[in-house]
């Protein structure tokens, strides 16, 4: 069986769903970051696959952008996470409720 565009898209959808569930379920901030990375990479797979399918490099270029931005985002996020951990001794999401409406 030849692996076509649909397989990539299905993989991407499955990964995205896993990431989404992770975003909703995880209570640990670090694991939340992991879930976000899964989401971004699911999209990256879709970008790369569609780009290859159409023979257009724009999609792959975009995937690189996403990787770069994800990296910087994680760097900033981890920095904040460390500060938070030093101050509060925990990174549990349920305890971060200072912005109650």
């Amino acid at each position, binding site marked *: 069986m030849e692996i076509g565009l649909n397989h990539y898209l299905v993989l991407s959808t499955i990964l995205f769903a896993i990431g989404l569930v992770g975003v*909703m379920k995880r*209570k640990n901030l670090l694991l939340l970051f992991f879930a976000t990375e899964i989401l971004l990479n699911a999209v990256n797979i879709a970008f790369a696959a569609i780009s290859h399918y159409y023979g257009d490099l724009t999609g792959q270029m975009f995937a690189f952008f996403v990787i770069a931005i994800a990296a910087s985002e994680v760097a900033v996020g981890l920095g904040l996470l460390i500060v938070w951990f030093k101050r509060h001794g925990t990174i549990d999401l349920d305890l971060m*409720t200072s*912005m*109650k*409406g």
Partner: protein
Amino acid sequence: MEKYLYIALFAPFVSSLFSALFTATPKKLFTGIIASLLIFTSLVSSTILLIYLFKGGEPIHVEMMTWMATGDLYIPFGFLVDQVSVTMMMVVTLVSTVVHVYAIGYMDHDKGFNRFFSWLSAFVFSMMILVMSDNYAGLFIGWEGVGLCSWGLIGFWFHKESASWAANEAFIMNRIADLGMLIGIFLIYWNTGTLQYDGAFAAFHTLDPTTLTWIGIFLFIGAMGKSAQFPLHTWLADAMEGPTPVSALIHAATMVTAGVYLVIRSNELYSLIPDVGLFIASLGTFVALFAASMALVNRDMKRIIAYSTLSQLGYMFAAAGLGAYWVALFHLMAHAFFKALLFLGAGNVMHAMHDELDPFKMGGLKKVMKWTWIMMTIASLALAGIFPFAGFFSKDTILEAAFADHHYVIYGVLLFTAGLTAFYSFRLVALIFHGEERYKLFGIHPHEAYRFMLVAMSPLLLFAIIAGVFQEPFFHMVEELLRAHEYHIHSHTTLWIMLLGTQIFVGLAILYAYKKYARSGIKVPDGTSATENSFIYKLLINQYYIPYFYEEYIIRPYRELSAVFWQKIDIKIVDATVDGIAGIIYSTGEKTRTMQSGNLSTMLKWMVVGLVVLLSLAVIFGVTVRYSDGAASALSGLGVM
């Protein structure tokens, strides 16, 4: 000459603004003085303009700036000084100068001294706009301006319930009439395409009589409100709640004559529709008699003079309606002088008597108030039309005009009214100045007014005496503009019989008034005498029950209707709808605020919900659009696609 036009127009405006600066501060004498000086400047400029026009100068027409220019509509702030408006300007500025100076003394102890001058000067400015404008729109601005200032001045002592009520009554009644006037102005624009006097007058000749009649009627409705003609007359007597200088300036000499001015100014229109003219004359005649009859029994000094004003306005309308525009204008001028004088004299008496208005409680004041007595007597003689005072020339000419035009009913009624006028004027003079000193019973110590107030009144006194000599020159000045012609009664015998007859009739009325009211032994009426219980007396003292009728059949039903609308429609429907919408939004917010738990995890879940919802919508839209042409066109119609 344009310079003088602008000075005459804007000096009162500057005066008003200047005094307005000090409205929140205690009395400052200089506001009164500066306001008077500025109004005097305006008087001087008007005089220069009058002399210029009198010597045969061309009317001055300036366009200060454009006011409205949209499509075919072009209305400038244009001003016109011709023989008619300069006459009005003279009357307005002369009387207002006198009244300003007089008011410095009259309002001496009033807390609102500065505010008073601000309103008074604003009134003069509005009146100047009214008479100087070269189009109906500008006239209407002035018209509303004087209405507003009249409201502010009638209700000047607004802490008095009656004063603020009277102010509102005057304003509302004028608004009703102004609607008529506005319709008239719209009709003029509709049919002629312009509101400029010269353009509109030229176009009137091409219109059909029905249209002209409607225009004439609606404009006259406006005039009826401002000049307090029946049935919109009740406000004028109630307007006497204002300070007396205001009554003298606004409710005797100037504002109430604006209606007459409008008819005179629109003479080209009214001379095309003699039927409306005849109606105006008849109404004027009726009001002359009607108001005079109410003045016969009234026991409020100022109201008597107000009814007399109303009656004289009736004379002016009678003259204007019959086409004798110049006579109407001349009577307007003469009347302004002697009636303002009469009011200011009444103001002196009021001051002396500590605001007592019932002449039955006065009596014998001529000993302490010699000058006021002389002035009021002369003003009353002028009002009664005794030779050689001002009223003789103006009022007798109205009678002659009616007679020469063969309107004998109008003539007869006006002649009879002249007798009534003489009677009630001298009833007032006799009760105030002659007879026993009844005021002593009430423990009042009257005193003469300040000397400068009497000096301020002297120009009016002078004009009340000599205004008659201006009749010929005045006639020649306005002859061309108002297409005036002198009224000649063919037979000299008839003329002399008429003149002497009128004089004797009026003289007898005066003597009768003196005989009846100057004697000693007059008591303050207490409602027990036979006269006071007669039907006619009750009818007259209650002003023919017209205010009662208005109260009972217009104001009260209106108030009840308003209450129903307020409780049923406003509260139950309009308010309920608005409150309902607000309530829904509020409760939604109240319920959904629990979403904002501050928990990042919960927020992320809501974010995912939002994403899913938006995604589903996008899919639904996409599918619908692809498979249905109808939806596509509907969406493109909304501008979505």
